[in-house]
């Protein structure tokens, strides 16, 4: 009978339960997603040139575990708060507390187990989907990547089951030992706000100092790779703690200053919004700190991922000015070249002899020749050339495999060239407006050339081969960056959304009262928008600062970590904004009539 009643209670709160359930599922699927990379040693080894990758992923697991535990703890509290009034009622009507505590145990554990099972399945699905999406669409070369990875699945199960056993125990114990009266009145006990000014000041100072230490570590790691083994744990700890203190102290200080400014706070609903935020942030500090860390990880991962991608382009473009060099172009190759839209062709005739590779002077004079040159600062510069530049001939000759080429190259007059005995050959150089956009064509050309001249397979001097090499070198890192970025983004969004939505039920009364005393619907909506906007932007601002400093760590791997940084930031901003709008919409649906 009691069981029937309890299940009936679930039906009435289907919306709350679906919030809870989807939150837990996302946590499980993200955890699986991360483990599928982090535990896959073969994947890590074959896809990352950096020795420390496995080590860093180890810390990633710890961090994600902490985040997940906090998250599930929130979810569990939410579950308990939904149930305690009802169970308190049962107890008041005479149900035994041992029976009730058994029921909450079973309920908590069952919800957790189902969410974990479904979440892991979803995790496998997402892992496969995201993996495919990245590998196919971004031309990445990734090996040993498996969307279904048994150890990851097992560990996800173990981890979640253990957490849920603890949560279930906790719930049943807390129901057993709380007085019935307290259970019944649970709703009407809002968190108390006790502010100790001295402690607030200490916290803000401590927070800033901790962040400074963390930032210093990250900068140092960028300069000295051996520091990683000390730097990662120290930075992790100081930045997490620093973020927590800063959010806990600085934001409330700002809000209180705004409140004290009566010409602002006493206008319309401003004071209500500020107070609501003040209460919220005291309650939200943990989740906001977590979100800001995840924000930094997600944005950082995507930024670094894109950084590696650019690195591929920069290096490939920097080494070769021409997008393709085609020896003795044949019909098939000519057809491919013809299909390219914006292009400039340069054709050089040459004759290879024992001592020299000969080129026509007239070719150089009529067409010129450009090559790229790396300066000391690793920036490649285009050098347009004429005959007086001694390295032109050498650069030209570079397109012929080494063992085939003569020791030296030389420009000669047409008459001389014609009289030479060697076999006349041509080299066609193609320059387009974008190597990347015509990648598939150049790939075909490169393959045909390699088939026609097997020496080119070894030599790999054309731009496509260079690109291919670098791409395989950086793809793994790029892949990890994007993959983790997406995973952390999903996790952070669901955390924040979960927290905001799970608190919404308690806000209904407040907004209803404001409505009754004559607040326009529009003002209510505005105050909700503002409130949620602040909750979203506090972690975002800190997260962005973390990323900007954190990029220093990648200086050894990326020679310009800040180049085109606006692209990942913009992508991220749009996605984050999307989450903001969804949360806002769902929240208003719950809170306003």
């Amino acid at each position, binding site marked *: 009978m009691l069981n029937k009643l309890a299940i009936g209670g679930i039906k009435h709160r289907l919306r709350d339960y679906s919030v809870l359930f989807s939150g837990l599922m996302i946590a499980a699927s993200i955890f699986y997603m991360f483990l599928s990379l982090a535990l896959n040693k073969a994947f890590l080894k074959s896809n990352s040139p950096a020795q420390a990758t496995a080590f860093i992923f180890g810390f990633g697991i710890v961090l994600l575990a902490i985040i997940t535990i906090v998250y599930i703890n929130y979810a569990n509290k939410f579950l308990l708060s939904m149930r305690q009034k009802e169970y308190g009622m049962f107890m008041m009507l005479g149900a035994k507390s041992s029976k009730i505590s058994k029921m909450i145990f079973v309920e908590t554990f069952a919800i957790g187990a189902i969410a974990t099972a479904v979440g892991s399945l979803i995790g496998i699905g997402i892992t496969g989907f995201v993996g495919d999406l990245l590998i196919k669409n971004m031309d990445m070369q990734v090996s040993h990547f498996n969307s279904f990875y048994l150890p990851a699945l097992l560990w996800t199960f173990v981890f979640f089951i253990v957490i849920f056993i603890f949560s279930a125990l906790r719930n049943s114990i807390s129901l057993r030992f709380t007085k019935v009266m307290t259970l019944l009145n649970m709703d009407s006990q809002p968190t108390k706000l006790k502010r100790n000014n001295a402690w607030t000041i200490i916290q803000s100072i401590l927070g800033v100092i901790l962040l400074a230490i963390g930032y210093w570590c990250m900068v140092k790691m960028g300069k000295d790779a051996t520091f990683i083994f000390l730097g990662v744990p120290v930075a992790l700890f100081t930045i997490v703690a620093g973020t927590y203190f800063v959010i806990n102290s600085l934001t409330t200080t700002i809000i209180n200053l705004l409140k004290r400014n009566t010409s602002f706070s006493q206008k319309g609903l401003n004071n209500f919004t500020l107070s*609501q935020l003040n209460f919220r942030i005291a309650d939200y500090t943990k989740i906001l700190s977590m979100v800001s860390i995840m924000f930094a990880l997600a944005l950082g991962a995507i930024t670094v991922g894109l950084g590696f991608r650019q690195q591929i382009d920069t290096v490939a473009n920097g080494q070769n000015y021409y997008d393709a060099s085609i020896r003795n172009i044949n019909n098939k190759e000519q057809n491919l070249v013809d299909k390219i839209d914006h292009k400039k062709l340069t054709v050089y005739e040459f004759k290879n002899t024992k001592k020299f590779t000969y080129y026509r002077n007239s070719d150089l004079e009529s067409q010129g020749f450009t090559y790229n040159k790396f300066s000391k600062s690793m920036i490649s510069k285009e050098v347009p050339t004429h005959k007086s530049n001694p390295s032109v001939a050498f650069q030209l000759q570079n397109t012929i495999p080494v063992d085939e080429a003569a020791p030296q190259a030389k420009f000669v007059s047409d008459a001389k060239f014609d009289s030479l005995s060697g076999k006349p050959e041509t080299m066609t150089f193609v320059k387009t407006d974008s190597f990347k956009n015509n990648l598939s064509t150049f790939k075909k050309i490169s393959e045909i050339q390699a088939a026609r001249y097997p020496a080119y397979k070894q030599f790999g001097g054309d731009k496509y081969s260079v690109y291919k090499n670098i791409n395989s070198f950086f793809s793994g890192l790029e892949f990890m960056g994007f993959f983790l970025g997406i995973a952390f983004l999903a996790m952070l969004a669901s955390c924040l959304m979960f927290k905001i939505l799970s608190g919404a039920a308690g806000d209904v009364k407040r907004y209803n009262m404001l409505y009754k005393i*004559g607040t326009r619907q529009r003002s209510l909506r505005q105050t909700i928008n503002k409130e949620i906007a602040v909750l979203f932007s506090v972690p975002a601002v800190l997260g962005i600062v973390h990323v900007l400093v954190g990029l220093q760590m990648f200086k050894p791997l990326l020679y310009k970590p800040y180049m085109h940084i606006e692209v990942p930031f913009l992508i991220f901003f749009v996605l984050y904004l999307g989450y903001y709008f969804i949360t806002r919409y769902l929240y208003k649906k719950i809170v306003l009539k």
Partner: protein
Amino acid sequence: MTKIVEVKNIEKIYGKANEKQFKALSDVNFEVQPGEFVGIMGASGSGKTTLLNILSTLDTATSGEVKIAGEDITKLKNNEMADFRANKIGFIFQDFNLLENLTAYENIALPLALQNTSPKKIKPAVDSISAKLGLTEILNHYPTELSGGQKQRVAAARALVHNPSIIFGDEPTGALDSKSARALMDTMTKVNKEDNVSILLVTHDPFSASFCDRILFIKDGEIGQELKKEEHSRGEFYQEILDSLGTFAE
């Protein structure tokens, strides 16, 4: 002088046309003069809250006419209703309805802030009403730090601070012990007499009702009887109410 409340033939039917319908109010007529303190009494389920919700624009009547301070509120649009509540009406509910995240002061100041009163004028207004209701000492407390009686007086101060045309109360003493109830009713009487504020109070507690000038009895959605205090003392009026309740209930 324009009447503060003028209700003509209102009817309220719950439920849509194709569903099971319930007539909560039928043909209700009455008026409230400026400065009057009127009570509405009736058994549970008789339609008191329904009536009050219609008067305060929180709900609409199925038919009939309601004028508050000369304005026909049945024709108002959504925003106009909100503004109307914000400017012309003060509320006191049974369950306090204070915002727990605002201090007593901030709760009281809220209606003024909603009207975009300048901050300079807010403080004196809040201070003066708080002094009148004896709340000066507790203005910086949060609602959880107040007793039930104090909370209800804060709610009363919030209802009064913007000088509304009328105060509506739905069982304001319902959750109070007799001592706090008496203190609140004394306060209400005081503002009614001294500041000439009109009050319309729903209650089924005869003691609270005995503070009113006039009492309307409502039964099954209809106003059945009216009782006036006139020259009686509060004690006599209380007895009279008890008597009528006895006969009215039969």
